């Protein structure tokens, strides 16, 4: 069974899944690290990203190179309304945020059902072509997904490391009071962090919608995956999100292909449960006092 074609497929799957999981987890961990908010509604923003892409590509028939950035940025911009209406009541209130944003999750999910009903939709594929490298078959649309995701991750890295806004965010994540006394505008930093986090989630959702079907319930799995990745890597840790995403994506691809989806789920959950018991702050996180 271990021929090049299958392995190639598993690898490509692994990379695309990992990339998407990292995108979702990054946004999630940003919101936690900077605003101490556990965004139980994170998956819903992924869902919105998928619907945005669907609408632009299917109904308006835009090319994906336009539809993707416009759709994703549009979702992030529109979500700033939710930041003002909902999120800002929960900053630095972790427990309240968990349950309150759960409420938002329900509102968004069933609001979507109300607007768009439950049936599944398919986003037109970005490319029907296929790349052949010897025995290995790579669908081009998967390749595009990987390239876009990696580009976004690179962009994010540059942003967080080399811009003032990124520095402000890192400062706020480490020590809010000190950051404020150093002149960091908390409110503005939060808004930027929120925008970036939702942007990543919407992008992840749009790419997810390329691979899987789109429905109002699309957000459930990405949310679960975000949790697992962030626990694996360490809550609030950006390198942790990257590590966790890779681990989860490849595990799922490998175990899922050879042993089935259920086995993959049991394994992932089992490992995370074990980790929570012995090392709850994750592989790259730091123990809180």
């Amino acid at each position: 069974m271990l021929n090049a074609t299958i392995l190639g497929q598993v690898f490509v799957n692994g990379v695309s899944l990992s990339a998407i999981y990292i995108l979702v987890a990054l946004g999630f961990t940003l919101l936690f690290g900077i605003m101490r908010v556990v965004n139980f509604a994170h998956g819903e923003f992924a869902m919105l990203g998928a619907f945005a892409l669907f609408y632009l590509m299917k109904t308006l028939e835009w090319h994906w190179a336009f539809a993707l950035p416009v759709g994703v940025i549009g979702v992030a911009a529109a979500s700033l309304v939710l930041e003002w209406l909902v999120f800002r009541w929960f900053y630095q209130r972790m427990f309240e945020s968990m349950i309150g944003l759960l409420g938002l999750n329900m509102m968004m999910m069933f609001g979507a059902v109300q607007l768009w009903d439950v049936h599944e939709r398919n986003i037109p594929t970005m490319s029907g072509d296929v790349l052949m490298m010897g025995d290995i078959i790579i669908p081009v649309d998967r390749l595009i997904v990987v390239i876009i995701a990696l580009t976004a991750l690179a962009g994010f890295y540059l942003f967080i490391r080399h811009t003032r806004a990124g520095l402000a965010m890192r400062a706020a994540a480490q020590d809010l009071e000190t950051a404020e006394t150093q002149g960091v505008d908390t409110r503005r930093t939060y808004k930027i962090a929120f925008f970036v986090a939702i942007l990543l989630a919407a992008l992840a959702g749009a790419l997810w919608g390329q691979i899987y079907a789109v429905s109002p319930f699309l957000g459930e799995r990405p949310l679960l995956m975000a949790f697992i990745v962030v626990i694996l890597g360490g809550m609030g840790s950006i390198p942790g999100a990257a590590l966790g995403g890779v681990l989860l994506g490849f595990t799922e691809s490998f175990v899922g292909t050879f042993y089935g989806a259920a086995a993959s789920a049991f394994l992932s959950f089992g490992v995370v449960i074990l980790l929570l018991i012995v090392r709850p702050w994750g592989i790259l996180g730091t123990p809180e006092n």
Partner: protein
Amino acid sequence: MSARKWIIALIATVALLGWPWLTEDKFLHHVGVLICLTSIAACSLHLIIRTGHVSLCHTAFMGFGAYGSVISVMQFGLPWPVGLLIGTALAAGVAAIIGPIVLRLTGKYFVLITFLMGEVVRMAIIENTAITGGSNGIFNVPPPFPFLTSNRAYYYFALAFAVFGVGLCARILTSEFGRAINAIREGERLAECSGVPVIRFKVIVFVIACALAGMTGSLQGHYIKFVGPDAYSGFQSLNLVVMNVIGGMTSLAGALIGTVFMVTLPELLRGYVNLQQIMFGAILFATMAFLPGGIIEAIRRIRALLKPSKPGLAT
């Protein structure tokens, strides 16, 4: 108890026992049964919340009780009381094993691990089709006793268990054990240095609460005549948490109020499932954002406005 409390208790008793005879509507009786059963689940979860831990796998323990009881009765032909005991013991046993491990985790980690564990249990139920009937569940579950034919009859049956279950929770919370639990929640280190064996007490509460959940699972399964994995999912556990949150997490009365609220509201909005969920979501958000103490806190604040007290004194 004061005379006023005796009168209230009397009226409540008469109301609880008498109302099913004021109507022949089987559906209303059904809602009554649901409120009784759900109140045991919500109140037992409340016990766990009072130790400072929010569990998102409480319905998984209902599942242990339900499947344990149903399988004992249908596969092994045991009488229902034995099935009830087996289901309850199974739930209590699992709680006793995992309790000492997971109760050492704080806040968000405990929420996450219980959520994941609940999902693992649900997936395990779905995978083991031979024993559990998989995702289809088990149908035609017999009632606990042959005389329990009508919803009204089941209501009194469920009421008896509810009085026991909720009463036990109330007794625990008002006892010296309850005082220690409050101390643990408000200042764990402080309590430990006053001699409170923190982990041991948390485990005791966890085991009792999960046992009550198991008991409820059995009662519910034999009432609905069906058990299936979806009734014991993380989402359903969440509903129990929501009941506690909306009613008010600081008192048992909050759990009861939340139960009545969450069980009856869908009935008022029947046919508008989406709107129900959206409304619940909105209430959840608004409660946590503006009134984290829930309905109970709202009542307290209204009372405080009506009779002002001297600053510094406890009201």
